């Protein structure tokens, strides 16, 4: 299938025609509208997109032009992408929730003359910055509501554009000939789309991709996960995000599977259950939210149900993953798991909409082993991938049966990975971008001379599994004085996966060893204290309790053991730790508003503690100013104890990463 796709169709319009031929009467797209799932077959989609393309051309869209696509996942916006590509224009999807200024930046930078938008909200947003967008000529919209009284000189419904194109195709033979010529003359090396990065690090950049490369990359992963025209995916992640464009649009076009658009963002979870997708992607955050929701509902359930749930989740934890990985499991375990599947796992998966999921991915941030293990244990084939917009998503992915919570898998077929001396991951892939739009300087910055792309992430290959482990942003990775690599976030995350630990700040760059400051989780540790008759009057008292120190020490020891198992990380084991007497708080500037620790700021604020961590003293005094919720300020002073840790012998001879 993959080879057929690449041999015959090197552009998306050609793929669409192929799909209409091969799967003409199979569903290509579904959308829930007025409470009912509407379906369009590949044949119908081709028909609409052809008319739409001619309509766009009549409006003035030409080969090489850019057209913005702004809104939620809706068929008409996906068709806008297809129709633009058919004309030879380059679609530029923009995040629907971008504020007006961000939108203006992208629209202006991408030189768009046209914008296909979802509704009045987006029209208003663009109109509010229209004086910054002299190049913008026409807006076309999906949802008519509220737009009736607007000046329609530069505004019209998508339906009208399609209808106009349809009329032209029916009446004018030259329009048909023109369109067919456009499709034939499209080359694989033409740009297919510009995806703007979200701009978490600096201004957003337009990643330019081509038809041929996108299709090559997509064909590889379609083959990797054995996706076929019988699969179904729910398109609920932002249209402008590389993940949606790749996983749904591109893979859907290549494999010919159906993508379903939810009714609106709030109904996505219900729609998921109704559609029952076979291919699913969710960021760790979403998976965590789902699990929390299930847990809360189970706590409210009746006694019998609750017992049953906890018992069988325990069974799943013991055998589930091994069964999924096709490893040997005793017969009794198999039978119990079967029973659990009947009573608990299958109904649970049904509620979550996972009943038919064959392949599920998560990516974007580190996922806790507990969380990851839970979903796998109930039989969801959840895997991890690592990717980037610049790679056109996939760099690595875990193959079925080789799943670990702390790796992102080996390189996907045809992708080449290299790791530099300072630990940065470089890759070269069939789908990689051709450059940042109108920004050669930035392009040159991330490309190496021999054509590899710098990811900005630090990582290494795990010895045992051969999988890549991503540990931190490359610029945050430091070195201990003996040259051992020190990725703070990697160590912090390992500790934060324990429910008793809320925040961690790790130090080690240009130091002799790694030391950490820990924030306990009041809810988790507090409930432990209640159960074990540990009396405490305040957070500070609980944090300083010797028994609490004992618990945390166990966690740190476990982390050290897991660090020792990696040859590269063995030297970065934690030697000393302390438990902070107060919770780190965004109001005090210790965390960012998105709850990330501000390592540098904390080092200054708790300077005396950091010094004590490294001068060998067993306790230290600290006084910090705090801001109360009503804005008053006060001081908290405390004597904080510091514990030494034993380190494990590292695996193999200690070869320095450097």
């Amino acid at each position, binding site marked *: 299938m993959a080879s057929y796709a690449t041999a015959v169709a090197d552009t998306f319009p050609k793929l669409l025609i192929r799909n209409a031929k091969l799967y003409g009467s199979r569903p290509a797209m579904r959308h829930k*509208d*007025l*409470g*009912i799932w509407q379906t369009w077959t590949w044949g119908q989609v081709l028909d609409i997109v052809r008319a739409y393309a001619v309509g766009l051309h009549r409006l003035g869209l030409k080969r090489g032009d850019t057209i913005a696509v702004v809104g939620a996942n809706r068929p008409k916006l996906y068709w806008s992408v297809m129709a633009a590509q058919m004309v030879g224009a380059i679609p530029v999807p923009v995040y629907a929730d971008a504020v007006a200024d961000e939108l203006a930046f992208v629209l202006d930078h991408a030189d768009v003359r046209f914008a296909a938008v979802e509704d009045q909200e987006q029209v208003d947003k663009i109109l509010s910055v229209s004086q910054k967008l002299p190049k913008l000529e026409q807006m076309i919209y999906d949802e008519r*509501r*509220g737009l*009736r*009284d607007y000046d329609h000189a530069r505004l019209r419904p998508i339906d009208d554009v399609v209808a106009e194109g349809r009329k032209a195709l029916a009446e004018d033979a030259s329009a048909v000939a023109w369109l067919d010529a456009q499709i034939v003359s499209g080359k694989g090396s033409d740009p297919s789309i510009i995806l703007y990065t979200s701009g978490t690090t600096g201004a957003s950049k337009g990643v330019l991709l081509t038809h041929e490369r996108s299709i090559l990359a997509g064909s590889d992963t379609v083959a990797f996960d054995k996706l076929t025209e019988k699969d179904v995916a729910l398109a609920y992640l932002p249209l402008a995000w590389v993940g949606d464009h790749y996983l749904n649009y591109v893979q859907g076009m290549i494999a010919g599977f159906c993508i379903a658009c939810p*009714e*609106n963002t*709030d*109904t996505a979870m*219900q729609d998921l259950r109704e559609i029952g997708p076979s291919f699913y992607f969710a960021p760790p955050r979403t998976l965590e939210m789902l699990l929390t929701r299930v847990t809360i509902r189970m706590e409210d359930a009746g006694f019998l149900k609750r017992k049953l749930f906890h018992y069988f989740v325990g069974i799943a934890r013991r055998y589930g993953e091994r069964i999924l990985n096709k490893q040997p499991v005793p017969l009794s375990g198999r039978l119990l798991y079967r029973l659990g599947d009947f009573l608990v796992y299958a109904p649970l998966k049904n509620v979550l909409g996972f009943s038919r999921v064959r392949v599920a991915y998560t990516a974007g941030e580190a996922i806790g082993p507990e969380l990851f293990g839970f979903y796998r244990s109930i039989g969801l084939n959840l895997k991890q991938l690592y990717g980037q917009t610049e790679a056109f998503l996939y760099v690595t992915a875990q193959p079925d049966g080789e799943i670990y919570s702390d790796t992102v898998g080996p390189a996907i077929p045809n992708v080449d990975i290299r790791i530099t001396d300072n630990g940065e991951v470089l890759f070269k892939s069939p789908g990689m971008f051709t450059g940042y739009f109108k920004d050669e300087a930035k392009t040159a910055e991330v490309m190496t001379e021999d054509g590899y792309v710098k990811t900005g992430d630090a990582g290494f290959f795990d010895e045992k599994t051969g999988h890549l482990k991503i540990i931190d942003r490359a610029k945050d990775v430091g070195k201990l004085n003996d040259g051992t690599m020190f990725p703070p976030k990697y160590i912090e995350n390992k500790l934060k996966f324990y429910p008793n630990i809320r925040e961690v700040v790790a130090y080690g760059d240009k130091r002799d060893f790694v030391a950490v400051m820990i924030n306990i989780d009041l809810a988790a540790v507090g409930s432990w204290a209640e159960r074990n008759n540990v009396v405490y009057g305040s957070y500070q008292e609980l944090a300083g309790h010797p028994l609490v120190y004992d618990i945390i020490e166990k966690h740190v020891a476990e982390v050290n053991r897991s660090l020792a198992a990696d040859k590269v990380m063995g030297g970065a084991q934690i030697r000393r730790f302390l438990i902070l007497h107060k919770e780190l708080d965004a109001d005090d500037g210790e965390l960012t508003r998105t709850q990330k620790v501000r390592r540098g700021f904390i080092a200054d604020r708790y300077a005396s503690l950091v010094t004590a961590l490294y001068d060998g003293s067993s306790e230290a005094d600290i006084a910090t100013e705090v801001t109360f919720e009503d804005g008053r300020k006060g001081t908290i002073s405390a004597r904080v104890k510091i514990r030494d840790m034993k380190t494990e012998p590292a695996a193999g001879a200690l070869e320095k990463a450097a």
Partner: protein
Amino acid sequence: MRAPSGPEIAVGDVLLSVENVSLSFGGVKAVTDVSFDIRKGEIRAIIGPNGAGKTSMLNVINGFYHPQQGRITFKGKARGHMRPYDAAYGGIARTFQNVALFRGMTALDNVMTGRSLKMRRGFLWQLLRHGPALAEEVEHRHRVEEIIDFLKIQDIRRVPVGRLPYGLQKRVELGRALAMEPELLLLDEPMAGMNIEEKEDMSRFILDVNDYYGTTIALIEHDMGVVMDLSDRVVVLDHGIKIADGTPDDVKKDQAVIDAYLGVAH
């Protein structure tokens, strides 16, 4: 689709007029000699301090109370003795100050009840749910889904309204009133008890209803800011007496209104 009875009234003409209406309960005079009109297509507000007789006025329009004196003309026809369901059949729908929904029923079913006036098949037919009754239900369900889409409550379609937050319940209630496809929509304190965000949403919906369905709206409201932004014309009551009537700007400047709201030295 409009309510069938009565002549067609052009936008801007008087849809409903209240002439010299007085209403009292025993010795308590709720409304005294009040006259005003509501024109087709406008958003008309009735405001006033607590106990000014606003809700009584609404109940009079709605046919729930019968005024001892005065006359009410709706669509050119003077109304005699009228019951609330006559008003409903005549094209007047309302929402209530305290949400009055069927708490155990889903949002969808609640909105669906708004269609019951339009159902032509009898109870037995509907029980059968076959043939014409089914076709009719599908048609009504389609209308209801349009309203659900309009009010953006798709995600709570299947949730019993008793479990919904207050702001959403208000929205469902508006949906039920809209399902009647009224010519005149009476809203009794649509924003009461809402936070700012909910108020903004509700204002948006009220303007959209007026714009999209062309529904004439009469609303009672406490929140002066909201009233002044939303309405085309405002009538002000105080102690059952009309003290002002005009555009929001005129009313704001009216000394009698300022006195009624801020109090005046006696």
